[in-house]
């Protein structure tokens, strides 16, 4: 029983991380209509920036995370300007390939600069707390709490500020957004900035538990693809739901089915879902 | 009877685009479907060409039940169609468009292609021959080697009709063939449609240009809000109160 609860909490932790990355991906999909392959790699870079801020400059964990978020927001904007904006009117296959190119580029630069070693963000909250007979490290609680806070903040930003609602407006109707005077270029940059910041935050939060390494982006991006296909591409509630479903399934699957094949589980779920419902579980139709 | 629909219905989300439409098309006639924008005309076409699956009701073609069969089966059974937005293979030439249009009548497969068998050569020849024949029929022989992007709007409309004809249909569905072309071109088009009918193909068209419809059609069906509100000869339709109301909005004569 304790093991089960432990795994549920682990599932939540995993789901929280997935969720922060998936939300950004789904926001970008909404306005660009292209799954951004390089999104996981922004997560990776966020992890590295946090790591170096702490280890090289001795900056506080939270401040490092904040700096990483800002750096990544800028990187996200650059990515939009250099890769996605020029490709806006290209066929979708070409956009996809450009995104793959961006992904290869970022990962390769990370390898050249930082090598392929695994690094770990120094853990400062590694005390163990007991809640209802379950042993938890503080960092896990911080991950879950941090993710929830960011999700709420994102929700408030999108639903209750005019600037935030321009992102949704553009996703729902690009022409309509232009017609009310919204500068779609600025919204696109804003969206990339927000999405990259979320990815960076995910890496800063998870860094002390999971490790930081150049190919960490490649694995998470595929998991997150699975999530947004499950949740419906472009859907925000779908991304949240999908993240926790996947986090939970992986955590429980690793314990009760096979830890060796735990990474296969996510992809197997996707194949299964799409075999039964070719347009995804919560598809809004189209695309 | 060539085509028959019984209580044909289509919903999109909560919207009923087509509501229990019963309709019949006789062999050899020219039938027109008219109605205000958004009345369900294109939806009707999309259902009887198998482009969308219907939600309920039945479609039978030459006595065969077609309900629920995939799109390509409709074409193979002899229903050809054009689209409102002229739909062509934009990165090929006029001739190549028509050659691929004949594909469903050919039999060659992968092995024929690899070994360039007699059948492959025969099919290739037959496709070219058929394409040439249609080019002649629609009067586009001169531009046959032009990429589709280079021909005029009116030629593109003809080619779209040709593309439907090359599949050797028994019933040809034309979705607003005269949209976006001028007066002179419209009368050429009318001639072409009559020529098609004389060659033994039944024609069913959606059209907004009333004059053209009244001259061309033997029979007219009027749709409004997805329901059939009238059916009859052009003369009958012209006098029908419900039709006038649907078009003019209550006031009968301005």
């Amino acid at each position: 029983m304790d093991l089960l609860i432990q795994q549920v909490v682990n599932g939540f932790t995993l789901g929280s991380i997935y969720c922060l990355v998936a939300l950004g991906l789904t926001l970008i999909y909404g306005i660009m209509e292209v799954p951004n392959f390089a999104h996981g790699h922004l997560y990776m870079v966020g992890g590295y920036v946090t790591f170096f801020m702490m280890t090289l400059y001795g900056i506080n964990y939270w401040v490092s995370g904040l700096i990483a978020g800002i750096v990544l927001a800028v990187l996200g904007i650059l990515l939009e300007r250099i890769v996605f904006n020029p490709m806006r009117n290209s066929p979708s296959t070409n956009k996809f390939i450009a995104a793959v190119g961006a992904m290869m580029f970022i990962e390769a630069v990370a390898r050249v600069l930082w090598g392929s070693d695994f690094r770990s963000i120094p853990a400062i909250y590694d005390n163990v707390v007991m809640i209802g007979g379950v042993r938890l490290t503080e960092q896990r609680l911080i991950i879950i709490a941090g993710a929830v806070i960011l999700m709420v903040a994102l929700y408030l930003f999108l639903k209750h500020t005019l600037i935030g609602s321009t992102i949704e407006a553009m996703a729902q109707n690009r022409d309509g957004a232009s017609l009310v005077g919204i500068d779609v270029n600025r919204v696109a940059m804003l969206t990339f900035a927000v999405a990259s910041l979320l990815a960076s935050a995910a890496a800063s939060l998870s860094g002390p538990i999971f490790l930081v390494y150049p190919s960490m982006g490649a694995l998470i991006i595929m998991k997150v693809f699975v999530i947004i296909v499950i949740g419906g591409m472009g859907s925000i509630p779908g991304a949240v739901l999908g993240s926790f479903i996947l986090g939970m399934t992986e955590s429980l699957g690793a314990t009760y089915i096979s830890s060796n094949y735990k990474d296969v589980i996510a992809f197997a779920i996707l194949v299964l879902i799409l075999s039964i419902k070719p347009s995804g579980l919560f598809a809004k139709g189209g695309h | 009877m060539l085509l028959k629909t019984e209580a044909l219905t289509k919903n999109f989300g909560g919207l009923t685009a087509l509501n229990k439409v019963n309709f019949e098309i006789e062999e050899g006639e020219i039938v027109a479907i008219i109605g205000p924008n958004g009345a369900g005309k294109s939806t009707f076409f999309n259902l009887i060409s198998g482009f969308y699956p219907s939600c309920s009701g039945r479609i039978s073609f030459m006595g065969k039940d077609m309900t629920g069969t995939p799109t390509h089966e409709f074409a193979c059974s002899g229903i050809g169609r054009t689209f409102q937005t002229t739909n062509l293979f934009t990165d090929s030439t006029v001739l190549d468009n028509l050659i691929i249009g004949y594909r469903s009548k050919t039999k060659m497969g992968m092995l024929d292609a690899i070994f360039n068998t007699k059948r492959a050569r025969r099919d290739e020849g037959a496709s070219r021959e058929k394409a040439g024949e249609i080019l002649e029929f629609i009067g586009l022989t001169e531009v046959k080697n032009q990429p589709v992007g280079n021909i005029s709007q009116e030629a593109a409309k003809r080619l779209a009709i040709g593309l439907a004809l090359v599949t050797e249909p028994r019933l040809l569905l034309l979705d607003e063939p005269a949209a976006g072309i001028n007066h002179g071109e419209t009368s050429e088009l009318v001639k072409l449609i009559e020529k098609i009918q004389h060659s033994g193909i039944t024609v069913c068209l959606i059209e907004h240009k009333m004059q053209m419809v009244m001259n061309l059609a033997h029979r007219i069906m009027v749709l409004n809000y997805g329901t059939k509100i009238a059916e009859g000869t052009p003369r009958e339709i012209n006098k029908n109160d419900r039709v006038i109301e649907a078009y003019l909005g209550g006031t009968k004569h301005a």
Partner: protein
Amino acid sequence: MDLIKKMYKTKYIAYLAVFALAIAFPYISPNRYYLTVVTLGFIYAIAVYGLNLIVGYLGQLSLAQAGFFGLGAYTSGLLSLKLGLSFWLSLPIAAVATTTVALLVGLISFRTRGHYFVILTLCIGVIIHLVIEKWDSLTGGVRGLIGVPIPSSIGPIEFKSLESQYYLVLAFLILTIFVMSRIVSSLVGRTFKSIRNSEELAATLGINVMKSKLLAFGIAAFFTGIAGALFSSYIRFLGPEIAATHLTFEFLLFLLIGGQATIAGPLVGTLLASGITESLQFMQEYRMVVFGALLIVIVKFFPGGLVGATKSLKAKLEKRVNQRKKSGTNLPSKGESHAAKNRGFN
């Protein structure tokens, strides 16, 4: 008429020259290393021809290709290592097995469209990779399979030397190119292209889209499987990374550099890209940096790749020559200048 004849003649001579060069290569190659690089390039090129059929001609971005490559390699490698089958049996079995798996994959994935298709095939590629990596008892896991035997000799012909293996691979490459060019120039190939252009229109013309897609997918997988089997007997060591998506992306890069939907593209792109990086050692570290950036530049500015760019350059030159010829008699007609504009547009 004369011009066309002349064009065919020059083309014919060009083909012959390339063929002669390919035959003579082992004797003019400055060292054995180049020979190895080119042989490996040929093997990859066979797989890239498969990808070309799917991406270039059918217009579907399938990212499971490295998975199929790995499947072919491991099937053939395992059959010859564990069951002692001869290469001449394990190769066709590997090709058929890969095709069978691909058809099953196709049945599922072609029901989806657009981005879903891309992501689904990507995930299937990852599954194949992960299964190869994790199924330790069969595949040796991350340690891989060592010592796959070379092809057994046929009568007096042996495949011990690098040269003989080069010719073996060359033969398969020529076979691939021959089959591919026959297919894409036939009605079958036209069918694929029509689906790339508009699936809806193809279906309303009576084309069974699903069947055609499966056919293209199957043919592509068949050759990818052959490439995998050739790889296993040539490199003689198999690791799970040959099924990783990274290899798919490299195939994609090779294809785009050379030019998708062309017959020469896959070979040109693969030889160029793999050749340059292999021969310039200092590039190793920066290879993927350059490739990543290159991929973006290519899709943005040269979506037709090298072969496509050459073709359009040639067309432009020809046009200029024709216009110069004509300008003596009359000005270029309005229609023509329009045509030129349009081609630039597409």
